Structure formats: structure tokens, C-alpha cells
């Protein structure tokens, strides 16, 4: 990561990162994830990569958080309902200052606080343990209801993939959110359209996805945003702030395994270990992306 970015991150309490800085940071963090996953030979590249711009924008531009006080009652919450993208969350939290980035290589090592799937009991900054798919939205409904009951005003973000949307519990939660209308609950879908066994269309078709939520009575974003285009993600944040009607749904079109051309869109890279040849071929692509995005800073 270049010095401009490093300085920006250390000054984040004074000034949010700009669109260009966020793009360059996301490229850097994607490479970090790629390196960790390859060195550990375990973990999930596809869905970690597809969420990278979304989580970077949340943690470095959007969320009201205090890394020095992870349990701060008024903080914004993020539930990574697609818990298999844990390497993504850990990379964000460490870079944001919740714990030392030197811990990252211990991902999935016995004794590490970086469990295979996120654990709120072990890792500072993890707002909810996840892993079993489909839990996130229900928990988000509860967190958001608690905010109002306790006189707080925080955002609750729930980030999920298609797997969570296959689970029946999610639709129970969708109905209950429409009934109770918890304030500042935002459901974000990293819609990369590829699951473990194949494409979403092969495994369990979800389209028309946004329309389903409209029919359930949700406040649905007027468009599907490009989840790899930082300007579009910032536009989606503007939409979130545009009215006070809850709950809100934002769908991001993304690419599973984004950033390594020959891995993109393939279910093989949901959770396969990154082999030496693929690593050697893929890494230069990610490095080139960083160079391109840092050049404009």
C-alpha cells in the first residue's frame, strides 16, 4: 500500500476516504486476502473478492465506528451473513485498526482469534458470529429494533450472498422486517450469481430479486449498483440517506473471484485452495490493478 493511502487511513477520523482512495484501498485489500488465502491453503476467495469494494466503502467511508472501543453501544453494526467471506471482514477490521494486521496470517490457525467463520467472541470488531447461512437478516432485525427501543440511532447493515437467500429463514426475516419496519436496517446483497455448486440460476434461481423485496413491502433501491465501481457504491449510500423509509434493500451486481480473470465467475473458486500456479498467474493481475488505481492518487 502506498504512503498516501496509509496516511489517509491513519487520519480517517478527521476525513473520510475519497472515491479514488477507496478504489485503490480495495485493490490493496483484495491482494491481501489473496495472499492470506494462498498461504493458508484454506478459506473462500470467490465471495471474499466479490464483496471487497462494498466492505471497503462501508468500513472506510460509511460506518460510524470506534476501533478502540469495539463494543461502543452507538456504533453502526455490520453482520456478514455470508460468513465464509471471513478473510474479507478480518482484512477490513485489521486495516481499520480493530487489531494488528500482523494477526492476519494466522487466519484459520489453531489458537488464532481469526476463526474459519467470524466469531464475535474472539475477534474485536465482529458484530455477530456467522457461518451457518441465513442467520444475518433476522439478527439484523433484532439489532435495529434494539436501537430504537434503547434510544440509539445506529445503522445495522447486513451483507449477504445468494446462499443466505436460499435459506428459508431469510424470507421469514424479510417478512418480519416488513412488519416491524426497524429503523436504519439496510440489507445489502453481494449478488455475484455463483454459489458453491454452480451458478445461482443452476442451483436456485433468485430473479427477479429486487422485485421480490418490493412485493414484500421493502424500500428497494431504484437500481442495481455495480458492486465493483466505487462511485456506484457511494451513490447507493446517497440513496440510503435519501429518505427515512425502512427497511432498505440494496443489490450490488458483483463478480465472484473478481480481479483474477481466469477465476472470475467460476464456482470452483468459491472455496478451493489457491494452488501455486494459479497464484503465480493471478497475483500480477491484482498488483497491476493496484498500480493503476494508486497512480491517480
Amino acid at each position: 500500500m502506498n504512503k498516501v493511502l496509509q496516511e489517509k487511513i491513519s487520519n480517517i477520523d478527521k476525513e473520510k476516504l475519497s472515491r479514488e482512495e477507496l478504489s485503490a484501498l480495495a485493490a490493496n485489500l483484495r491482494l491481501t486476502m489473496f495472499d492470506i488465502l494462498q498461504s493458508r491453503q484454506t478459506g473462500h476467495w470467490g465471495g471474499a473478492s466479490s464483496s471487497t469494494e462494498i466492505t471497503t466503502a462501508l468500513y472506510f467511508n460509511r460506518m460510524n465506528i470506534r476501533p478502540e472501543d469495539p463494543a461502543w453501544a452507538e456504533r453502526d453494526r455490520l453482520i456478514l451473513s455470508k460468513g465464509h467471506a471471513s478473510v474479507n471482514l478480518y482484512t477490513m477490521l485489521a486495516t481499520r485498526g480493530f487489531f494488528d494486521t500482523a494477526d492476519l496470517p494466522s487466519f484459520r490457525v489453531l489458537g488464532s482469534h481469526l476463526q474459519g467463520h467470524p466469531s464475535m467472541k474472539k475477534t474485536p470488531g465482529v458484530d455477530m458470529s456467522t457461518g451457518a447461512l441465513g442467520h444475518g437478516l433476522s439478527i439484523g432485525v433484532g439489532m435495529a429494533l434494539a436501537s430504537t427501543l434503547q434510544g440509539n440511532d445506529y445503522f445495522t447493515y447486513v451483507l449477504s450472498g445468494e446462499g443466505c437467500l436460499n435459506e428459508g429463514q431469510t424470507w421469514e426475516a424479510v417478512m418480519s422486517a416488513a412488519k416491524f419496519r426497524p429503523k436504519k436496517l439496510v440489507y445489502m446483497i453481494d449478488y455475484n450469481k455463483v454459489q458453491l455448486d454452480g451458478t445461482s440460476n443452476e442451483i436456485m434461481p433468485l430473479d427477479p430479486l429486487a422485485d421480490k423485496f418490493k412485493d414484500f413491502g421493502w424500500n428497494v433501491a431504484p437500481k442495481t449498483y455495480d458492486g465493483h465501481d466505487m462511485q456506484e457504491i457511494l451513490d447507493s449510500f446517497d440513496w440510503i440517506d435519501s429518505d427515512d423509509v425502512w427497511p432498505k434493500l440494496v443489490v450490488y451486481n458483483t463478480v465472484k473471484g473478481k480481479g483474477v480473470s481466469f477465476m472470475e465467475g467460476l464456482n470452483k473458486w468459491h472455496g478451493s485452495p489457491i494452488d501455486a500456479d494459479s497464484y503465480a498467474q493471478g497475483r500480477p493481475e491484482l498488483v497491476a490493478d493496484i498500480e493503476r488505481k494508486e497512480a491517480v492518487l
Partner: protein
Amino acid sequence: MSIAMREAFGKKLAELGKDNRDIVVLDADVSSSTKSGLFGKEFPARFFNVGVAEANMVGVAAGLATAGLRPVVNAFAIFLALKGTDQIRNVLCYNSLPVVIAGAYGGLSDSYDGASHQSITDIAIMRAMPNMEVIVPADSNQAQMALEYALEQNHPVYVRLNRNPMPEVPSDGNFSSKKAVVLREGSDVTIAANGITASMALEAGAILAAKGIEAEILSMAFVKPFDTESLAASVKKTGNLVTVEEHNIIGGFGSAALEALAATDLSFAYKAVGIEDTFTETGAYDELLAAYGLSGENIAEKAEKLLKK
């Protein structure tokens, strides 16, 4: 007969809600059956009827608990234990969230609704989860004490409730000690009774006494943590143990008792009274209990056989 356990539980919930503003109550469209509706009527802003969706209910409760609230989730025991299992394990227990799981219509008490609604596996499921405590109150008084106790814990607690008015059983008032209550002292056989079976055990004690057999009767509401000390002390004296539970004999209270005693150096003779690994059926509650071996007579008979061995 005391008032029905569910009635007592619902009233206590509403009473506690007055002073403790952190209590939030959730129900899955059975609030008039579980009596959580009594709380809902008093405190509508803190009451969430989530519809027939137990999994979501547990998840919502977990979210509320992360912020420091004290959720109590209510549904039929069988559906909480089966439809909310993943959420109870992976969210409540894994994160040790302080949610009270109130399983209504426990055991065979939803008698006329039949096997689909009768809960004979919930205790086995709940007690297998780390960080969980499991309580089966013996009567309405204990149900209220169990609720008060559960709301003070920093982890999930499963409280299994009964639908019907049941005989009152003496308690020592020190419920939070988690100890067995010795209902009758004796030196020939120990009868350890879980939940509402305590009153049946007392009947068995009278039957046995008439035959010159002195049973020591322990009422044990806590399945987990298990009061090994009290049970071991009694079994050391009698050398014979009968466990009684309104649950499958696999995985429930009797299993917990044997696991606990296996860690001691005691040797003893044993018989289990409970549902003998079979599906139950429709019928009047008292008749149903007796048909599946849950009666003073059957407990006494089992104890007697043990002594004749």
C-alpha cells in the same frame, strides 16, 4: 393443583416487565397459548409476535440481546427445539447470548394434539449445546422461579413449561442454588424425578412405603448444570436409582444423571422411567402419561423390580 404453569409463567413475565424495562418478549403466533400475550398486553412496544417462524424469532432475539436487552422467546417446546435449533446453537449458545427460551406445552402436555405436538426430544437437544442451561420446573411456583433465575444469567437458558394445572411440589425456595430438593428421605432406593414427574414420584414413594420400601425422592429441575453432588449422596446411601422424566429415555434427564454418576466411583442398580423411544399419541393428558409409564404405580413397580434383582 396449582394454576397452570403457562399461566404462572405469563403472569410472572408481565410482572417482571414492569420493573425490568430490558425485558423484551417474542412469540410465534401462540401467545394466547403460551400466555406471553399477558406481557404483550401490558407492554406492546416490547412485544414482538413474529408469526409462525421460530427460526427467525430466535435470530431476532439474538440481535436484541447483543444490545443488552433480555429477550424471552416463546413457542411450543417441540418447535423451538426443532425449528430454532440452528439459531439456538450457532447464535445464542455459540455467542453465549442471554436469551430465555421458554418451551411451552412440554412433554406430552399438548396431549390431544398428538405426537406432532408432543415434545419428547427437546431436553436431549438443548442440553447437548455448550453454554446452555436446561431447567424443567416441577410446578407453577418453580416455573416462576425459573424465569426469574433465567433472566439473571449471562447465557441462554431453556425453560421447559407444561400446559396444564399440575400438583404443587414442595420447593426449598433456594431455586438459584440449582440443587435437588429432597422430597422424601429413604434408604432403599433413590427416585430422581425431573419436572412434573416429581409429584408422581411422591405417589410412588407412598405406594412403596406401604410395602415397607423407603424411597428417597429427589425433585430435580436442573438438567444442566446437573446436581451430581445431591444425587450421588443419595445413591451412595441406597445403591439403587430410578430416574423419571417426561421425555424420551434417550438423551434426556436420565442420560444426564447416568453421565454424572459415571464420573463418580459409585456402583448402583438402575432403571429409567420415561417415553421408551417411541412416538406417543392423542389422548387425555393423565391417561396418556399413564399409558406411557408416567404414573406413581409404574415408578413404584420399577423401583420394586430393582430391589428384587
